């Protein structure tokens, strides 16, 4: 096997096996920090050895065994004089692995622990991306727009709190479940978004592993609380977004905006499933939450066979509803993009400019301004906005698209 193939196999194993390895080690050693470090060491060993030795027939089992050995080494190092009883307990796994099929619950346990309400929301997201998503510290730091050292401290502090305050490693009891689920949804949405707009110069523009993982985990949560409207809403939103995945990046690796996508390339099965979920929620007559509204917006877009058939007044009406629930500047920015189609770029630009204070560090703010200025024929301002957007955008496909648009300015 060539080094490149081996490298790919390690990358694949990392994505597929990371959460399982971390979950298995956390269950066995009762310590997230040991689990994470040992898993990371095992993956580093794989990167080193697999190119020469070949990829083992069962990469997951190899990684778990190697990580377990690393964990035991660390525990021995830290407790130099282990008594015989402890030593025996360390080597004998008294938490036997779950039968096949129960593995999903194992990862759910990991998610609920990472998303515990006694942790700050930022820490929950970071921890889930690290422990469940397997993202590296720089990737997570970028997803949160903070320094790597800040992110490292945040994760270290969260792990220490889980240990010292004894945050349990389990799926919460029925009475705690509804409140705990909404925290998990916020985290899964972020994981999905990181996959959908992956960052980092060497990264694929769309990381299907992350979007697929977020969808898979959301389905698991839905099986757990099938009556929760927001779970259904988030799942629908993810499916309708995922359906457009292949149409969203061109053959040359450039982002294709919604209006220019080949709608025939959308995944019809995912669109149908997403629409079904949205209709199901509408039929309940219960006031929709944030995810259900976003899913409904996505449903309007995916219902139009041609971009010219888009019901923009419906989109803007849904954004108005969303603004009342979530007055964040990012929602206002997305609303302005829809307003541009309904009332023209001049009106939209005025709305976007009002967000400048709060979104100056957000690439989409500058990309939106650049596009609106271009449509208004204001090339100079547009070029400057494209420059700023390119500087801030972390996604390779997006950078390619923005660069071409800028270079096409007269």
């Amino acid at each position, binding site marked *: 096997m060539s080094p490149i193939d081996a490298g790919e196999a390690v990358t694949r194993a990392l994505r597929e096996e990371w959460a399982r390895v971390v979950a298995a080690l956390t269950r066995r050693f009762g310590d997230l920090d040991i689990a994470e470090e040992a898993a990371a060491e095992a993956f580093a060993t794989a990167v080193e050895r697999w190119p020469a030795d070949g990829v083992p027939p069962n990469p997951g089992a190899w990684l778990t065994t190697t990580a377990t050995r690393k964990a035991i080494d660390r525990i021995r190092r830290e407790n130099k004089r282990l008594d015989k009883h402890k030593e025996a307990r360390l080597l004998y796994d008294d938490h036997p692995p779950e039968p096949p099929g129960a593995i999903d619950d194992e990862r759910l346990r990991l998610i609920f622990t990472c998303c515990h309400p006694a942790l700050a929301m930022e820490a929950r997201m970071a921890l889930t991306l690290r422990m469940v998503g397997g993202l590296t510290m720089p990737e997570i730091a970028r997803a949160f727009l903070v320094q790597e050292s800040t992110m490292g401290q945040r994760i270290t502090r969260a792990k220490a709190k889980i240990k010292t305050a004894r*945050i*349990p490693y389990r799926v*919460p009891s029925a009475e705690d479940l509804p409140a705990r689920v909404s925290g998990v949804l916020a985290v899964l949405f972020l994981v999905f978004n990181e996959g959908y707009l992956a960052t980092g110069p060497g990264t694929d523009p769309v990381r299907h592993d992350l979007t697929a993982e977020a969808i898979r985990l959301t389905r698991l949560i839905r099986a757990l609380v099938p009556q929760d409207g927001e779970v259904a809403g988030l799942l629908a939103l993810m499916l309708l977004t995922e359906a457009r995945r292949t149409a969203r990046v061109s053959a040359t690796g450039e982002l294709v905006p919604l209006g220019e996508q080949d709608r025939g390339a959308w995944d019809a099965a995912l669109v149908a499933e997403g629409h079904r979920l949205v209709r199901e929620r509408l039929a309940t007559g219960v006031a929709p939450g944030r995810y259900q509204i976003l899913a409904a917006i996505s449903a309007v877009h995916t219902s139009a066979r041609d971009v010219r058939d888009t019901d923009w007044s419906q989109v803007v009406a849904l954004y108005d509803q969303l603004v009342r629930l979530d007055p964040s500047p990012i929602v206002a920015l997305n609303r302005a993009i829809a307003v541009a189609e309904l009332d023209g770029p001049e009106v939209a630009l005025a709305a976007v400019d009002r967000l400048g204070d709060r979104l100056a560090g957000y690439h989409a703010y500058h990309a939106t301004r650049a596009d609106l200025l271009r449509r208004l024929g204001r090339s100079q301002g547009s070029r400057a906005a494209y420059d700023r957007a390119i500087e801030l955008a972390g996604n390779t496909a997006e950078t390619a698209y923005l660069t071409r648009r800028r270079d096409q300015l007269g």
Partner: protein
Amino acid sequence: MQYLVSVIDDGAGLATPTEEAAIDAFNDRLRAEGHWVFAGGLGSPDPATVVDNRGGEAVFTDGPFLESKEYLAGFWIIEAADLDVALRLAADGSKACNRKIEVRPFLGG
């Protein structure tokens, strides 16, 4: 595992008779369910004295070590299997005494 459950008073003052009755009922439940370790009321920090004997001679200072509108007005020490159990008890405790509450694990608990 033991947790310190601190009652934070932000100006409400001493417990009313209704609050006292609710606290008594909560305490009975803690004992019945095996969570009880210790509890005590402290009232306002006005009568506190700060003692510092790190130098040559003990220095006594009148008043609390921290002047604040919010102060520790009482506490429970509870036994709980994990933080979920402790937080659920603390939520009921907060309702009973009608005050904000802080939950902290004891070291090596």
